[in-house]
């Protein structure tokens, strides 16, 4: 059994190659099912691998995936956690350039917008954007939606979301001292931020 599995993992496929029938397999990453004939085709170049179904699931089909070679660069999806650098802070919104999606860095630039009502979970009408972010801050945020034509909508309305790294006016990396404040280790100056709870 293990021998058969290993042989299968090594099989190299290219887009359009037949991987199996939808009646016997499920299409995973890098594969798709044709609606016309129920055949599963590869959509990427890579190695074909079979993932057995979880033992408790009703569906006893294995999942077939194509992985191991190049996939396109990371693209933000609603629900993914991103890291972004704040570029502009306005009265109602803040713009940020997304630099990381989940654990992957993005190859191309994507812009995100944090609206006033998405900064924190409580007292959302009393948020002052300028007391939450500064240009240059690195924030952790959740992608709410694909947003409008310009940018993705981001949210920091969770304890673990918000500013994770910020530089003070003196140039030091600031240390969080409360949910709303960060302090510069060089000058002792306290600046307001929407601070993220970073797990150690």
């Amino acid at each position, binding site marked *: 059994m293990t021998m058969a599995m290993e042989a299968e993992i090594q099989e190299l496929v290219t*887009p*359009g190659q037949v991987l199996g029938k939808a009646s016997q397999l499920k299409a995973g990453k890098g594969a798709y099912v044709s609606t016309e004939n129920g055949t599963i085709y590869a959509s990427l170049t890579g190695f074909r691998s079979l993932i057995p179904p979880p033992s408790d699931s009703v569906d006893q089909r294995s999942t077939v995936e194509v992985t191991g070679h*190049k996939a*396109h660069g990371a693209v933000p999806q609603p629900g993914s956690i991103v890291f972004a650098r704040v570029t502009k802070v306005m009265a109602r919104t803040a713009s940020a350039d997304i630099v990381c999606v989940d654990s992957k860095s993005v190859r191309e630039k994507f812009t995100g917008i944090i609206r006033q009502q998405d900064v924190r979970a409580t007292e959302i009408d009393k948020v002052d954007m300028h007391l939450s972010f500064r240009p240059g801050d690195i924030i952790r945020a959740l992608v709410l939606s694909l947003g409008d034509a*310009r940018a993705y909508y981001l949210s920091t309305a969770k304890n673990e979301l918000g500013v994770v790294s910020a530089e003070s006016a003196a140039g030091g990396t600031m240390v969080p001292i409360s949910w709303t404040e960060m302090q510069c280790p060089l000058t002792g100056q306290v600046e307001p931020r929407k601070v993220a709870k970073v797990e150690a």
Partner: protein
Amino acid sequence: MAGKSGSTPTTYSPSPATRKKKRIPIADADWVRPDNRGFYQCRPAYLRTGAVSTAAGSAYAEFGNTKVIVSVFGPRESKKAMMYSDTGRLNCNVSYTSFATPNRGQGSDNKELSSMLHKALEGVIILESFPKTCVDVFALVLESGGSDLPVVISCASLALADAGILLYDLVASVSVSCIGKNFVIDPISEEESYQDGSLMITCMPSRNEVTQLIVSGGWSTPKINEAMELCLGACSKLGEVMRSCLKDVVTDLKE
């Protein structure tokens, strides 16, 4: 460059079954093509991926004297002026270098070829996989030696696969010229200049679907059928060459 291909088959020709059906009219049998090819013989093809290091994916194709380079960028953010869309967008651009043709001129963008490349490729990309973003395909014809569009399309398909863009299948494209009573496959510039009609097919070889068909000149239905069969046969052969090119890159990386 053609010598470096190693184990990859460098030529492709339509399947023997299709070839048997054709009879070259005796009156024209002594007529030879300028490059001494058979009427149903394609030019040797050399394909390589990863030609441009700064692009997300790229490919270089050389079919006889026709040399093209295609780079793919993205998925990246659409231009600001564009409207929101749920699916991804495809942006194509075909340009010629100033030294691509024998008459040295200005390197230029070719709007017509760009839109034809877009048509040929849009059916093969799974655009739903990258909403709101766009993929840019830039093709540069280094040397124009005839059948430029089919070479650009096939090369672009390789570049997309190299970029890791989700595809329904690869696309292979082949054209046929009608000269008098004869068909010549994969015509060179000289043949294209005195052709009576031409037919180009872009198809997904594994799914057996056509994404684009361009016919120009006067054709009768039986002749179109015959030419299409010829093209489809050649497309499936070319598809095999393209697949082995993609596979070679991965095996080379592993070693």
